[in-house]
């Protein structure tokens, strides 16, 4: 069975890797993006992975900051997942750049007015911090690791807030231009990150049925975060609808009733919210917890897609959609085969890196609780 998994992973990795080579050789011709819908699957995947990374890291910082003894044994797992997700996310966004070879210009020509500059600077600091923390944690230099976790806590909060602000500050897009975005990104990061931690910790035997403390608290935390997220999301969608100003609700209507309505209703609400909610409301057991957290973590990509694409799929000026008709001047977008292929590479890379981490780092080493 293990061999079969490895074979499957190998196929995905090589097949996806061919897509990355194509991207490097052919350029961006194989993408279905255009001048209007200019961000798509890769940017969505990037914010998905970055959310998981910062959420997992924030969780580990909170464990240190609040002294949550029950979760102490998850800290290493959190750090590993945050590093792996971050590396994968950064690779995704570098591939999305029109001139990826110039990415370092962000440091050479600093622009404090751009939220994207802040994001890159924060991620760079964050990357170094996670790396150092992993080194100290895995070397059992607990004091140094604890200090880094304290420094990292505000950084871990700032990162999803900055990610949300990247969209929130864009006044041209009513769907994004909301003070809610920085806030919801913080809670979304925590929810997606913690759900993935819960799933992985069950798979690797960290969370056990007899581990009462952790087993009782973790589902409740995830449940609480899920409810907070649903509430914030409802506010983002319902408030403009209530206002009934056409310009403000077009993207919201696209999310709820557009051609990809099922991404929101079936994948996100159905599989990613309602089912986990019921599973977590009942008296939890390991199966329910793993299903609920797995569904939340994996379907969270639908949330990211519904943030990035609908805002761009609305013409800023009426009539623009038919003013000059060309493939890349359309207000509709479906990811190309190439985009999926490269995304598959990113995900298999993440799985591969995680596997290497588990294999070569003492992630599974746990201390006996006093």
């Amino acid at each position, binding site marked *: 069975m293990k061999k079969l998994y490895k074979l499957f992973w190998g196929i995905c990795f090589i097949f996806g890797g061919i897509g990355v080579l194509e991207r490097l050789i052919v*350029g961006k*011709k194989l993408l279905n993006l255009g001048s209007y819908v*200019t961000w798509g699957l890769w940017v969505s995947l990037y914010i998905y992975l970055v959310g998981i990374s910062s959420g997992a890291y924030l969780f580990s910082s909170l464990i240190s900051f609040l002294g949550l003894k029950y979760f102490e044994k998850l800290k290493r797992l959190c750090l590993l997942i945050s590093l792996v997700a971050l590396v994968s996310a950064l690779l995704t966004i570098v591939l999305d750049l029109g001139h990826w070879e110039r990415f370092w210009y962000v440091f050479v020509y600093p622009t404090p007015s751009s939220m994207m500059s802040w994001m890159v600077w924060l991620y760079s600091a964050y990357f170094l911090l996670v790396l150092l923390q992993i080194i100290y944690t895995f070397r059992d230099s607990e004091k140094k690791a604890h200090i880094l976790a304290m420094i990292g806590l505000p950084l871990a909060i700032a990162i999803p807030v900055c990610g949300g602000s990247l969209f929130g500050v864009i006044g041209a897009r009513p769907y994004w231009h909301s003070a809610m975005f920085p806030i919801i990104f913080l809670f979304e990061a925590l929810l997606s990150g913690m759900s993935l931690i819960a799933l992985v910790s069950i798979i690797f035997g960290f969370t056990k049925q007899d581990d009462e403390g952790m087993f009782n608290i973790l589902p409740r935390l995830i449940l609480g975060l899920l409810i907070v997220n649903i509430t914030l999301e409802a506010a983002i969608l319902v408030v403009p609808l209530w206002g009934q100003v056409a310009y403000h609700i077009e993207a919201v209507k696209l999310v709820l009733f557009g051609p990809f309505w099922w991404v929101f209703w079936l994948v996100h609400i159905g599989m990613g919210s309602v089912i986990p909610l019921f599973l977590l409301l009942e008296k939890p057991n390991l199966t329910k917890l793993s299903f609920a957290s797995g569904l939340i973590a994996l379907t969270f990509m639908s949330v990211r897609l519904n943030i990035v694409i609908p805002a761009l799929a609305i013409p800023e000026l009426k009539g623009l959609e038919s*003013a000059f008709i060309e493939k890349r001047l359309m207000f509709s977008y479906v990811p190309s085969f190439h985009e999926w292929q490269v995304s598959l590479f990113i995900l298999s890379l993440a799985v591969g890196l995680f596997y290497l981490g588990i294999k070569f780092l003492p992630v599974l080493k746990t201390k006996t609780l006093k």
Partner: protein
Amino acid sequence: MTKVIVMDEKKKISRKDFLKLAVPAAAAALASGSLNLAKAVSREDESIQAPEVDLSKLPRELVQKNELLRMQEDLLRALSKPRKERKWAMVLDLRRCIGCSACTIACKAENVLPPGVVYRPVMDEEIGTYPKVTRRFIPRPCMQCEKPPCVPVCPVKATHKREDGIVAVDYERCIGCRYCITACPYNARSADFGETYTQGTPKVQDYELRPAFEYNKIWPRKHGASPIGNARKCHFCIHRIEKGMLPACVTTCIGGATYFGDNNDRDSLVSEFIARPNITTLKSELGTRPKVYYIWG
């Protein structure tokens, strides 16, 4: 070197004489631009040549009455000032626009724009219900905003506002993140994905590979080289105006609906239009203060 010579004598000419002179004169003004461009294309290693326009040889009344010639004169007058004292503006008279899209195509040809990149589409708006229906055509170049939302979001300062108010992109610095495209409230920016119209045919045609002269530089279309991978936008044909030529969309507008000039010059044609009460801008409520103005009716 461009010459600005304004005639002193004011000759009276008849309407017939005026037309006789106006048509070939306007054609000559256009040709001077296009001939010059052809010269530059064939000599990539040389700087783009400026045409010599001597408006003094034309009757004063003709220059005043022919909008194209007047704009040409306004342009040359503006060029005699330092760059920071110019404020380029465009006025689009929608009553005159017939929706032929000649400006769109001229712009495409002038800037060698690939598939998916358009600087000046013309929107076609249908007003009313049958049988009381009318159509309005709205060209949409870059608004060259006084407060451009695309500038502060650029993480590397590649998008910047020049002294003369034109919002420009430094192709050699742009990393292609496309954040500026999302920030523009007019959808006035495009992404260059490196395609050509004749790709997939036995041969990519040479006309698609000829260089563009945007921002007074020569940009051969080579795989992976800027402007491929960059954000691109209308720049009022800086490379033309700084050599004494009107933007391509202005000289090709068959309805005479596009006006261009220096809004810091109170005697310019555009300043006259902008001072009128029937002038407006797109999405003025956003406070971006566009320098592209519209006359709706």
